[in-house]
């Protein structure tokens, strides 16, 4: 091919971007030139997770386009430039900014727009929709001066929008025209249960309501009047009454459309013009619009393969519309023929009123095939059931067992993932089959995070996460790879198991642990691990004989060892607040012992270069001046950073310094699987960088937002929002539970960030455990924390009061001289360790 073929994509949404990705991958000989028109002001982003914008995700977090991706693949993206007309005869597209671009192949991926029913008054201020980041920004702005919000439409998106309004602190209503919620996916009993559950969360649901007009309200901005005469006052109205394909460009250039809109395509995703393809929500295949991302992705791959003229290019032959979601914390799933419309279909349903669970399966006349299912309140069986249906697998003799709760002792009837064929699609969003997963596992992806990264499974809607994990475990087991969690050769247990054994067996010493659960004498892995667990559980004094020899040198000397064998000293400065007198005290200690001083990244002061024998004297002076140990040496609570907050700052909405100090004093001394860092910011400007800490707190107009599981370090991770607008008492309760749950379940040396990334069920699960007490552990976790707090001691204070303990700090056991290998030189008026070539006298060869 001499001339490059030019492929133009109109619409840079989820599906348009997917098309570009597949093209980029196939365009190895650089035969194609790729151009896209993007109407929105930002490149493609993850609309499926749009609502996470409200829980702290930024537009960048949601972006689907890795930095430099378009540049690397020579893709030209006209951002903020809408395509306005298509000239099919001359094969040209003209844009709003006046660009005229010719094409060889044209891809239409314009998506859809939210349908706003033509109710009189629908165009008033604060009548909004929920589709783009711009929409969300408009909603956030409107919510600032609002107290009540109403969503028109009780479908999937409507309920998601309702959740957003609720999270914004509004009293929220859902107004639905049909007699039940989610009419498309669930049946009547399911809808009723869903309504109960959602009302229990504080959202009012009004079904069977036909809105007739929107006019000025008395108490609030609007009043909605319904056909039955009732009225509802609200400040914001969000329309979520279905979607309509954005087919106007296609209509103007006379491509064939469906009766009710949508650009008609064939199995190759071609429109009535063979050089024009349509994909995603704008496309109509077999008279159907697919309003989910996974069918759109399949169309994108098909169209790309057609354009690339790949051998055996795939065809689009329809897609499964099963879905599983969590709506306001309620699991909802719908599979296949949920309404039992297939002739002869039989349904089994289970209504568990005490747990508010509704489950239904629809099976074929002969009872051998699964046709559909509805699950509400608990959708654990979703993965299993979906596989039964997609692979037409024969059902067990009593299909109802698939949804009946298991009684103790009875074996699970679910299909083992082993029974699935290699061709079974596990992740439908990203079209990942069991075979793909197995190949990746074979190739060494033995951690769930690795498997996700290399196959993309479970990275979109997340509905397949549990099944993906099951496949992983099953494969590893089959390969005889024992998922080995033993921490070392002495103790055949994971840290979590060690924790459990210590708690349950009330074990207080390492010797006791080793004699009952291990062998040998122990090593530098198991000793500090068990010591840390003992400290988390019983919080004993770490230099108690039994415990002392288990500690790493940093804990043993209660200081951080530096490269030349000397130590650094870090007194605690809660919240970073310090008086001039204390600053002077630190200064004079540093001066007296000639220590190097530096402000740390954690808002306190580090004194470097102390020799072990000097540590007790240094600490005596610091303690006399009112300081306590900063635990800079321990796997324990480090610092609580603060910003200056409402006390001084003109924007501050609450006292971040006060809260920092309170929190630092509360949790100081807690030993944990890895270090813990906190921060508190006084407003959303976030000067304390709370969203990069293990625990971050940000003041809001209505209380405190609690963020968890962030860190800096080698692999930075921003936090997730755990709960918002908390009063202080609830905030502290949640932090207590969160920390203790982490301490209880984490692996050794696993920061909260990595722990979260490996936590099955992720953030939602953590929310349930911490905020909803789904495991019934809350009281226990709180009281465990209380006992740590109640047994706090400043380890340095205890130490300097005990002459026996002081002895162990001298460098030599038989003389008072100091280590002659410690040599300093001066730099910028302070000491630093001499480099090798600067040392006059070197220690033994």
């Amino acid at each position, binding site marked *: 091919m001499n001339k490059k073929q030019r492929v133009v994509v109109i619409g840079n949404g989820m599906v348009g971007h997917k098309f570009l990705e597949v093209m980029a991958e196939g365009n190895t000989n650089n035969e194609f030139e790729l151009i896209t028109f993007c109407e929105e002001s930002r490149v493609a982003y993850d609309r499926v997770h749009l609502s996470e914008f409200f829980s702290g995700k930024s537009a960048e977090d949601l972006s689907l386009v890795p930095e430099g991706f378009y540049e690397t693949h020579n893709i030209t993206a006209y951002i903020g430039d809408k395509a306005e007309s298509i000239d099919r005869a001359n094969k040209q597209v003209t844009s709003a900014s006046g660009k005229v671009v010719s094409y060889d192949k044209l891809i239409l991926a314009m998506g859809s727009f939210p349908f706003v029913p033509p109710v009189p008054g629908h165009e008033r201020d604060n009548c909004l929709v929920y589709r783009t980041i711009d929409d969300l920004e408009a909603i956030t702005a409107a919510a600032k001066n609002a107290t009540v919000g109403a969503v028109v439409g009780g479908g999937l998106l409507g309920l998601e929008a309702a959740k957003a309004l609720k999270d914004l602190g509004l009293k929220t209503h859902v107004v639905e025209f049909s007699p039940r919620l989610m009419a498309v996916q669930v049946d009547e009993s399911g809808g009723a249960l869903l309504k109960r559950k959602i009302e229990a969360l504080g959202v009012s649901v009004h079904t069977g309501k036909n809105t007739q007009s929107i006019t000025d309200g008395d108490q609030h901005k609007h009043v909605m009047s319904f056909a039955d005469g009732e009225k509802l006052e609200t400040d914001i109205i969000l329309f979520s009454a279905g979607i309509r394909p954005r087919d106007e460009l296609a209509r103007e250039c006379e491509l064939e459309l469906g009766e009710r809109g949508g650009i008609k395509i064939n199995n190759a995703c071609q429109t009535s013009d063979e050089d024009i393809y349509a994909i995603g929500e704008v496309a109509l295949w077999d008279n159907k619009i697919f309003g989910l991302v996974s069918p759109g992705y399949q169309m994108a791959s098909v169209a790309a393969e057609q354009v690339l003229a790949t051998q055996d290019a795939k065809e689009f032959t329809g897609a499964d519309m099963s879905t599983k979601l969590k709506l306001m914390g309620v699991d909802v799933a719908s599979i296949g023929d949920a309404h039992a419309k297939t002739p002869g279909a039989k349904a089994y349903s289970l209504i568990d009123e005490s747990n508010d669970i509704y489950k239904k399966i629809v099976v074929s006349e002969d009872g051998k095939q699964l046709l559909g299912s509805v699950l509400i309140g608990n959708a654990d069986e979703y993965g299993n059931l979906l596989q039964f249906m997609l692979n037409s697998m024969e059902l067990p003799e009593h299909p109802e067992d698939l949804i009946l709760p298991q009684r103790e002792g009875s074996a699970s009837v679910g299909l083992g993932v082993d029974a699935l064929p290699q061709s079974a699609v596990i992740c439908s969003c990203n079209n990942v089959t069991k075979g793909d997963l197995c190949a990746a596992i074979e190739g060494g992806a033995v951690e769930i995070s690795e498997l996700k990264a290399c196959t993309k499974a479970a990275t979109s809607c997340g509905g397949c996460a549990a099944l993906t994990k099951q496949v992983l475990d099953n494969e590893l087991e089959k390969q005889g790879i024992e998922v080995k969690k033993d921490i070392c*050769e002495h103790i055949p247990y994971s840290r979590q198991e060690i924790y459990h054994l210590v708690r349950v067996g009330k074990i207080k010493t390492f010797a006791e642990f080793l004699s009952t659960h291990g062998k040998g004498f122990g*090593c530098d892995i198991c000793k500090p691990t068990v010591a840390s667990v003992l400290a988390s559980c019983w919080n004993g004094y770490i230099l108690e004989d039994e415990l002392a020899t288990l500690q790493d*040198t940093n804990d043993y000397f209660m200081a951080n060892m530096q*490269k030349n*064998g000397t130590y650094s000293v870090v007194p605690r400065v809660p919240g970073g607040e310090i008086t001039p007198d204390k600053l002077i005290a630190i200064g004079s200690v540093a001066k007296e012992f000639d220590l190097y001083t530096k402000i740390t990244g954690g808002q306190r002061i580090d004194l470097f270069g102390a020799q072990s024998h000097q540590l007790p004297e240094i600490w005596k002076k610091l303690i006399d001046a009112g300081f306590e140990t900063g635990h800079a040496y321990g796997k324990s609570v480090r610092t609580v950073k603060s910003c200056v907050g409402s006390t001084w700052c003109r924007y501050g909405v609450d006292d971040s310094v006060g809260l920092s100090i309170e929190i630092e004093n509360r949790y100081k001394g807690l030993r944990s699987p890895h270090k813990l860092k906190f921060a508190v910011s006084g407003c959303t400007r976030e000067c304390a960088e709370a969203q990069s800490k293990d625990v971050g707190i940000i003041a809001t107009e209505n209380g405190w937002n609690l963020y968890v599981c962030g860190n800096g370090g080698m692999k930075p991770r921003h936090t997730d929002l755990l709960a918002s607008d908390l009063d202080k008492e609830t905030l502290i309760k949640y932090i207590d539970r969160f920390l203790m749950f982490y301490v209880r379940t984490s692996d050794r040396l696993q920061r909260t960030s990595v722990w979260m990334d490996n936590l099955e069920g992720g953030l939602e699960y953590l929310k349930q455990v911490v905020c909803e007490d789904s495991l019934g552990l809350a009281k226990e976790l709180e009281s465990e924390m209380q006992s740590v707090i109640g047994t706090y001691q400043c380890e340095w204070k205890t130490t300097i009061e005990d002459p026996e303990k002081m002895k162990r700090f001298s460098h*030599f*056991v038989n003389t008072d*001289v100091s280590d002659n290998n410690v040599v300093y030189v001066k730099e910028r008026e302070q000491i630093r360790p001499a480099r*090798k070539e600067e040392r006059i006298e070197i220690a*033994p060869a």
Partner: protein
Amino acid sequence: MTDVTSNTSWTAVCQTSDILPFSGVCALVNDTQIAIFRTKDDQLWAINNFDPFSDANVLSRGIVGDLEGKLVVASPIFKQHFDLETGQCLEDDSVQLQTFSVRNNDGQVELAL
């Protein structure tokens, strides 16, 4: 402890009870820094205190335990393990530390250089 030939001179450095079981101390004898460790049944071991990987005198402050049947100390700086009996580094064949004779003489720790 077996007795030794008469011309070995032993230097007392501390009491055995000054060393906690499964820990170490450092003694200075003839300008040499020696790390002395106590393991089970009051057994004593002595190796050079100098950690060749960090060039610092720190080995007496390492964690004492066993690995693959050998009694070892782990350097507190970069965590290499040294066999207490032979001074051999487990992670690097080319590194072996000097060892010293040490005995428990009626509650006294004594070193011979």
